C-alpha cells in the first residue's frame, strides 16, 4: 500500500511538471510563431501610448529577453526556493512555493490562489453534497419505481440538466429568483463561512443549485442504471428470501454495489469541478479560482495562468488518487495486495 502511494505521488509530480511545461510553451511559443518579439509581449503590460523605452523596461523586468528555458527555470526555482520582487520602493520576499507576481496587478499569485480556493471549495463542496444526495436519491427512487410518472419526469429533468449550459441556467435563475422575486442573493454575494455560516449558505444557494443541476443529472441516471442491474442479481433475491426488510435490501445490498461506479465518476468530477467553477463563478461573479483563471487568460497574465493551471491539475491528480484508495473501502474485490 505504501509503495503504491509513493509510486502514485511520483507519477502525480511528473504529471504536474508536464502540465507546467505545456502551459509555459503555449504561452510563449504560439505568439512567437506569429512573429512576436520580447517587446511585443511586453506591449501587453503597459498603458496606452507607452513609449518604446517603457516597453523595453517592462520586457526587461518581466524577463522576456531571456530564452524561454531560462524563464521556465526561474519559474521552477520560485516554486522550490521562493524569490524576491523589486517593488521599486523596496524588495518583497515571496517564500516558496512562489508562483511569481501577476504581470497585470503586480500582486503575488500564491496568496491570491489560496484566498480564492476558499470560494471554489465552498462552491464545490456545497454543490457536490447537493448533486450526490439529490442525484443518488432520485436514481434509487427512479429505479425502484421504474416506468412510473416520477421516473419519467425525473429522467426528463435530468436530461435537461445535463444539456443546459450554466451561463444560461445561471443568468435565467438570477433574473428570476434574485432580481425578480428577491428570494436569493444577487450576483457577486460572498461571505466567508467562518464569519456568517447562514449568510454564506444563503449567498451560495443559487450557484450551488445551478452547478449541482449539471452534475446531478448524470448521477441520477448512473444510479438508476446501476440499481436496476444490481436489484436483478441473485443475491438480492437471496437477501429478500432470508426475510430482510426491503430497506435493508435496497440500501445495504443494492445501493452499496451500485455505488462503485458512482465513486469513480465522483472523484473525476470533483477534480474536474474547475471546469464547472469557471462558468459558475463567472456567471455569478464569485471571486474563486475559476473566475481567476478566466481573468488571467483574458489578460495574458502568465504567472496567474500557471498558478491556477497547476492548482487545478493538482486537484485532478489528488482526486484520482483518493478515488483509487476509496475503491478499496467500497468494494473489497479490488482491495490491493
Amino acid at each position, binding site marked *: 500500500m505504501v509503495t503504491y502511494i509513493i509510486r502514485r505521488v511520483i507519477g502525480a509530480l511528473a504529471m504536474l511538471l508536464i502540465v507546467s511545461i505545456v502551459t509555459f510553451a503555449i504561452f510563449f511559443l504560439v505568439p512567437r510563431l506569429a512573429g512576436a518579439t520580447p517587446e511585443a509581449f511586453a506591449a501587453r503590460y503597459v498603458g496606452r*501610448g507607452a513609449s518604446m523605452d517603457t516597453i523595453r523596461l517592462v520586457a526587461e523586468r518581466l524577463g522576456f529577453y531571456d530564452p524561454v528555458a531560462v524563464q521556465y527555470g526561474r519559474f521552477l526555482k520560485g516554486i522550490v526556493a521562493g524569490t524576491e520582487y523589486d517593488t521599486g520602493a523596496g524588495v518583497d520576499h515571496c517564500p516558496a512555493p512562489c508562483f511569481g507576481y501577476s504581470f497585470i496587478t503586480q500582486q503575488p499569485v500564491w496568496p491570491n490562489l489560496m484566498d480564492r480556493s476558499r470560494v471554489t471549495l465552498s462552491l464545490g463542496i456545497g454543490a457536490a453534497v447537493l448533486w450526490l444526495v439529490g442525484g443518488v436519491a432520485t436514481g434509487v427512487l427512479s429505479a425502484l419505481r421504474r416506468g412510473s410518472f416520477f421516473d419519467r419526469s425525473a429522467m426528463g429533468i435530468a436530461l435537461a440538466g445535463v444539456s443546459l449550459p450554466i451561463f444560461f441556467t445561471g443568468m435565467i435563475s438570477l433574473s428570476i429568483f434574485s432580481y425578480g422575486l428577491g428570494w436569493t442573493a444577487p450576483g457577486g454575494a460572498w461571505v466567508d463561512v467562518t464569519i456568517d455560516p447562514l449568510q454564506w449558505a444563503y449567498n451560495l444557494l443559487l450557484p450551488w443549485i445551478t452547478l449541482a443541476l449539471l452534475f446531478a443529472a448524470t448521477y441520477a441516471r448512473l444510479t438508476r442504471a446501476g440499481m436496476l442491474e444490481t436489484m436483478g442479481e441473485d443475491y438480492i433475491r437471496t437477501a429478500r428470501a432470508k426475510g430482510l426488510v426491503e430497506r435493508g435490501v435496497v440500501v445495504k445490498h443494492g445501493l452499496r454495489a451500485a455505488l462503485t461506479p458512482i465513486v469513480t465518476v465522483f472523484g473525476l468530477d470533483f477534480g474536474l469541478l474547475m471546469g464547472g467553477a469557471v462558468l459558475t463563478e463567472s456567471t455569478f461573479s464569485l471571486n474563486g479560482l475559476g473566475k481567476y483563471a478566466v481573468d488571467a487568460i483574458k489578460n495574458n497574465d502568465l504567472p496567474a495562468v500557471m498558478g491556477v493551471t497547476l492548482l487545478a491539475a493538482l486537484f485532478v491528480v489528488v482526486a484520482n488518487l483518493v478515488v483509487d484508495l476509496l475503491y478499496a473501502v467500497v468494494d473489497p474485490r479490488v482491495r490491493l495486495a
Partner: protein
Amino acid sequence: MALAACAGSPTQTPGQGQSAPAATGATAGGTEVADAAVGKIYNPSDKKGGTLKMANTADWDSLDPGNTYYGYSLNFARLYGRALLMFKAAPGTDGNTLVPDLAESVGKASDDAKTWTYKLRKGVKFEDGTEVTSKDVAYAVARQFDKEIHPNGPTYLNALLDWPKGYKGAYKSKDADFSSAVETPDDQTIIFHLKEPFGLFDYIMQMPMTMPVPKDKDTGTKYQEHVISTGPYKFEKNEIGKGFTLVRNDQWDPATDPNRPALPDRIEVQTGVNADDVDNRLISGDVHIAVDGLGIGNAALPKVLPDPALKARTDNPVQQRTWYTSIIPDVAPLDNVECRRAIAFAADRNSLYRAYGGETGGVITTSLIPPSMAGYKPIDLYKSEGDKGDVEKAKAALAKCGQPNGFETNIAYRTERTKEKAAAESLQQSLARVGIKLTLKPYPQDDYFALYAGKPSYVKENKIGLAINGWGSDYPDTYGFMQAITDSRDIRDAGNYNLSVKIPEVDKMIDQIKAEPDAAKRADMWSQIDHMVIDQAVVMPSVASKALYMRGKGLTNLFISDSQQMYDYVGVGVQQ
C-alpha cells in the same frame, strides 16, 4: 446640422454640449426621462449621506495615481486624490473647464510657455493629518517617471519636462537632483521646466500623476493597495481583483475644496463582475453605476430599448470618440490617392452606421475630429445620396488610378469586436459594387497593434490595405485627440494606432499648433489638418460614437460631463 438631413441618419444634434447646460432638474417626483443626465443635471441635490454602489465589469489598470490611464480611473481617482488642477464637475461642455484643485489657480506660464508655476492651497492634508506640500507633488511626479515600476500611466511628463541626463526616477535615482524638471522653492510653490513650449500644459496637470504621494509612505508597486488619500474619501478596505470600499476622509476640509460636493457617505465598488449581471443589477437597482463607462452590453440592449420604462432610465450622449477605417498608403494600389478616394466614394456609410449599432451607437460623421471638439467641421468631399456611397464617382476615381475594374486587398479588424466585424463586412459588400474585393482578416485585439494592424512591416507583407480602428481623446482638447493619430513622426516599428496618416504638411502644422497661443487659430489649423487627412483619403471616418448608459435607481445629482465622457463621479449622490 448638415447630418440631420441625411435619410435614415439620426436626427439628434451631435454633441451633448451644443446647447448651454442648464442646471435644472430633468425629473420631478420620480418620473424618468431619457437623456436626463446629458447636458444637464439629473435629480439635482446637495443632500449628503447614503452608500453609492458601483460595479466594474473589469478591473482598474491600477488605483495608484501614478500608474493609471483608464478613462474611468481618471474620473474616479478624483474621489480619493487631488491633482493640481481638475475638470469642473459640471454637465456638458461646462465640464471641460479646468479649475484649480490642489493649486490656487491654473498654471502661470512664462512667455515662452516653457516654465509653468503653480501655488498650492494652504490647509490641504493627507488622510493621516500631515499637511500636503509642493514636495509631495514633486515626489509623485518623480516616482511615476520610473516606467519599469509604473508602466501604465501617461508618459506626458517624462517626455515634456527637462529631466537631468540619465535620470531614472525617484526609486533608482533616489537622491538625484531633478530641479531642472521640477522645482519646489517653498512648500507652497511648484515650478515645472519644459524642454519645449507647450501651451496645453494645464491639461496634463489635471491628470492623477500630480496627486501628491508622501515619500515615506510610498511602497512602489504595493502603493496601490493603500493609496494615501487627499480627497473627500479614503480607502477603508481594498482587495485588489475583488473590490474596495471608500469612506469619508475626516482630514479633508471642504473649505479648501470648492469643487467636490462629496455627497455619499460611503462608496462600495465591486470589480470583475459579469457584464450581463451588471446590466441586470442596474435594471433591478442593486447597483447604481457601472463604473467602467462602457455602457450597456449587447445582451441587455434588446431588453432595454423596446421597454419605454427602461429606456427612460438611459443616457445616450455623443462621445469624443470616432470609429474609422484606416486606408493604408503603403499597400499597392492604395499608394495612389485616387484608389484610396475610390474607397471613400464607394463605401455605404449608412450601412456602416448600422454596423456600429445605429441610432444608439453613433451618428454618421465625415470628419475625424468629434463633433463636440474645437475644430470640428463636416467635410463634404465624398457626399452621396442617402449616404449610400457614390458608385459612379468611385468608378471614375478607379479609372484615374489605372484600376478601372477594381482591385483586391485585405481588411483587418479585431476578432472580439462584433461591431467592427459588421463594419468590415459592410465595406466588403459596398466596395464589391465597384470591383474592389476585400478579404476579411480578423486579429485578436490584445495584439492588434503590437503584432498586426499597428505594425508597418506586417501590414506591408500581408497587404493589409484597410484596418478598422477607433480613437478616443485623452483630454477634451483637439490636440489630445488628433496628435496621436495624425503625427507621422510617432510611427514606430510596432504598436502604432496610426500608420496611414503620413503627410508632411500635417506634421508641420502640428508644430505650429504647439506654439500657437490663440485657441481659435489652433482650432482652425486642426480643421485644416482634418480636411487634408480626409482629402488624401488615408482615413475614412464612419461614426462619431455614442454610448448608452443606464442609471441605477435612487441616484441624485447625476450628469455626464464632456471631459469625462461618462457619468461624473465627483458630483453624484444617492437618495436615502
